[in-house]
């Protein structure tokens, strides 16, 4: 099963999947702590596409069984949530903070937590406006970004069972999702609100230990109290008290997970010939924020990918190695709503060399030499969407240098309240400080095919990056 190293379509994976050894297939089980023997999840992208995620038929996947496991792990999250509920577990919907409240919720046993925000990409994967239509009926119309799909999903309960509690971060957050979360409460789902706090430089000279973000000690104390409120609300819903030991255990576990993803990013995005394609990395990055609703199984999934990347690097193998020269290195800003754009980038001779999918704070370690709530609060301040657009641009510039990217692609999200500010600042700063090509465009909803306009723009952008590389020789 180790050869060949290439990318396959969903159909091409079908016969190959039958060659997967039973031992490997049997190891792919989730919910072991809730369902005796666990639940097998290693289905193919084609099978998941038959359940409704049609976009899978337009993507190309890495040929390793470990990558198949990653895809299956991600697309089986929905099943996990329903099965867990059926097994008596409580279901917690986390909203907006992207990575911090999961550390708190996974301190508690007997529950599964998921980020409702991730339903954001469901309409594109399903190539259906079903969730958006339901959201529109409730007032969340198309001025908002795709995150309004969360409201549709809360209404239909097609993607997850009714949450026992929603944990909603507001304050320093985008307006569209804040509005959506309010409507979620309006349809009768219990919500615990907590205040996300913009880091503001204070007189105390405090900076976060790993992100280097200045903040005031007073704000940290408030935020710590807010996170304490989240823990209490979770405890009330789950009927148990959370101890310091439980929280420390969760911090340690998430630190191990974050380290896996961090190392994977360094290995893959740092290589001239990346050992894994951009799509698989896209999925892997998001596991860092929430374990994909499976805090045990996510480790072997990521460890497997890690192993594949290491082996390929030492053997000089890459699924993107078809060209005479290394692929053009592109740093990607914002998670693309249409995942097929990453495949398109690679088809055009590029590779992903660093990302800012909103979640870079989730790759930073959590401090263990302090109390867990302080460690999580510090990590909240590292969230690039809470910082100023200028600071975010500076972080991107640092990443671009680190990963030796040759161009920056900003795939904006129409209707997102941060894009009109961030995009322009990022574009201007990157061009000024690095002199690299930057392309900014919004990704429209385009079921069944890549938007022609987007395709044309990406083709032109890749030509410019190629020209830029040749000029530098």
């Amino acid at each position, binding site marked *: 099963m180790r050869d060949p190293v290439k990318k396959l379509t969903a159909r091409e994976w079908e016969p190959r999947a039958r060659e997967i050894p039973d031992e490997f297939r049997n190891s792919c089980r989730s919910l072991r702590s809730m369902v005796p023997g666990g639940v097998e999840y290693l289905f193919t992208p084609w099978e998941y596409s038959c359940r409704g995620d049609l976009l899978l038929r337009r993507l190309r996947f890495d040929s390793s069984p470990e990558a198949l496991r990653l895809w299956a792990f991600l697309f089986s999250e929905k099943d996990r949530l329903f099965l867990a509920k059926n097994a008596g577990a409580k279901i917690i919907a986390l909203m907006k903070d992207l990575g911090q409240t999961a550390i708190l919720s996974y301190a508690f046993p007997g529950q599964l937590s998921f980020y409702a925000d991730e339903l954001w990409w469901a309409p594109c994967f399903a190539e259906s406006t079903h969730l958006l239509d339901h959201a529109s009926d409730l007032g969340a119309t198309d001025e908002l970004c795709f995150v309004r799909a969360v409201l549709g999903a809360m209404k239909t309960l097609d993607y997850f069972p009714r949450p026992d509690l929603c944990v909603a971060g507001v304050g320093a957050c985008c307006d569209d999702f804040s509005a959506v979360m*309010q409507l979620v409460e309006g349809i009768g789902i219990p919500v615990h609100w907590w205040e996300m706090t913009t880091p503001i430089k204070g007189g105390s000279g405090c900076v976060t230990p790993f992100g280097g973000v200045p903040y005031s000690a007073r704000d940290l104390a408030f935020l710590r109290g807010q996170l304490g409120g989240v823990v209490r609300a979770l405890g009330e819903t789950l009927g148990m008290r959370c101890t310091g030991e439980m929280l420390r255990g969760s911090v340690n576990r998430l630190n191990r997970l974050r380290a896996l993803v961090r190392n994977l990013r360094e290995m893959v995005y740092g290589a001239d010939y990346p050992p894994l394609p951009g799509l698989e990395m896209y999925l892997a990055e998001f596991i860092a924020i929430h374990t994909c609703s499976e805090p045990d199984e996510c480790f072997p999934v990521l460890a497997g990918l890690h192993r594949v990347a290491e082996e390929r690097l030492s053997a000089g193998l890459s699924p993107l190695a078809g060209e005479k020269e290394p692929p053009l290195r592109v740093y990607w800003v914002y998670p693309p709503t249409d995942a097929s754009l990453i495949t398109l980038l690679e088809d055009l001779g590029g590779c992903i060399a660093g990302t800012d999918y909103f979640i870079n704070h989730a790759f930073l370690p959590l401090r263990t030499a302090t109390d867990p709530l302080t460690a999580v609060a510090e990590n909240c301040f590292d969230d690039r969407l809470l910082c100023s657009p200028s600071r975010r641009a500076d972080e991107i510039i640092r990443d671009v240098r680190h990963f030796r990217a040759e161009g920056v692609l900003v795939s904006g999200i*129409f209707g997102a*309240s941060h894009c009109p500010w961030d995009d322009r600042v990022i574009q201007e700063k990157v061009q000024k400080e690095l002199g690299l090509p930057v392309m900014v465009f919004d990704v429209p909803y385009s079921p069944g095919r890549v938007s022609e306009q987007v395709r044309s723009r990406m083709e032109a952008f890749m030509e410019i990056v190629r020209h830029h590389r040749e000029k530098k020789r």
Partner: protein
Amino acid sequence: MNHSRLLGYLCRAFPPAVAVGLGMRPVRAVAVGSEKAGEALVRPDLCPFVKSVLGGVATGAGVFGSVDAWAGMYTCDMTRRLFQELERMTGKPVFPFQLPATRSPESALWFADSVGEMAKNLVLAGFSSGYDAGAALAWERKRIAGAAVLRNAALSFRVPPMELHRLFLDFFLENRFPSRVAIGDNPPGVRVAVTGSVIPRGDDTVPETLAELGAGYLPLGCTGLAGLPRTVPEDGSIRSLALASFEDTKCIRNRPNADTFKWIREQTGAGGANGLVLRTLSFCDLWHTEKERFRRDIPVPVLVLSGDFSPGERGRTGVRLQAFVETLEALHA
């Protein structure tokens, strides 16, 4: 106190008496006209009010040009990013802090302390030589008294719409607190309450159209009744002023915002309005997304209007408001 330095602010939740206590003149810069200048600096798909503020500060236009420093209160996301970038883009000093969306006692205290921190930083930066609680309290009392006069006048529906609009904007921009307001004899047959996004100076479309149609006008938004102070602070300390201001803030951004809905329902009923206009600005997700809830929860007919201060808006709004008022007339004939 000569109040020679101007402290600019945008949101009604900021306690302007704090500026007075610092020896500064507060100016709530709710005015439009510089959107194009703002669009030169950011993408066009941004709240037109925020674009106007950015453009106004960058070019020194109108009220924006006279502001010496900004109380950079982070409220909605677009305003937060405005104040995160304004100093870098224009060179005008910004003193940032966050208005919580949550409404807990802890959030209220954190807000009050944040306002105190901002005041301390203004002193450190040389904009003020210190804080005078007595001056702040005396000014705030006058403001609350003026607000009561204005509130009663508005709820009577007997002040012509454009006159009422001017009185409210004078209150917020010029700190003119009326001791009396001339009230007409008979309220009009159709009485329209208006809520939603800020209605700044230079954006007269709704009150002007209502005046032309002979309808009454009750501004409920943050440049209307929701912007007026109600809670009397315990004393002139920054903390008391900030807590009172926080308590009075009935904004759709509050989480949860059930209390804001309740307040809008009550005010609509208290004034005897026949209809409610929800007037939102383009890209103002916080108000616009609540439109179905308004239609469902408010016991009078609701008209949703979206605007961007453009010349084309006047015609569109006029037609829709006319149809709305005519329908209300027919209902109450």
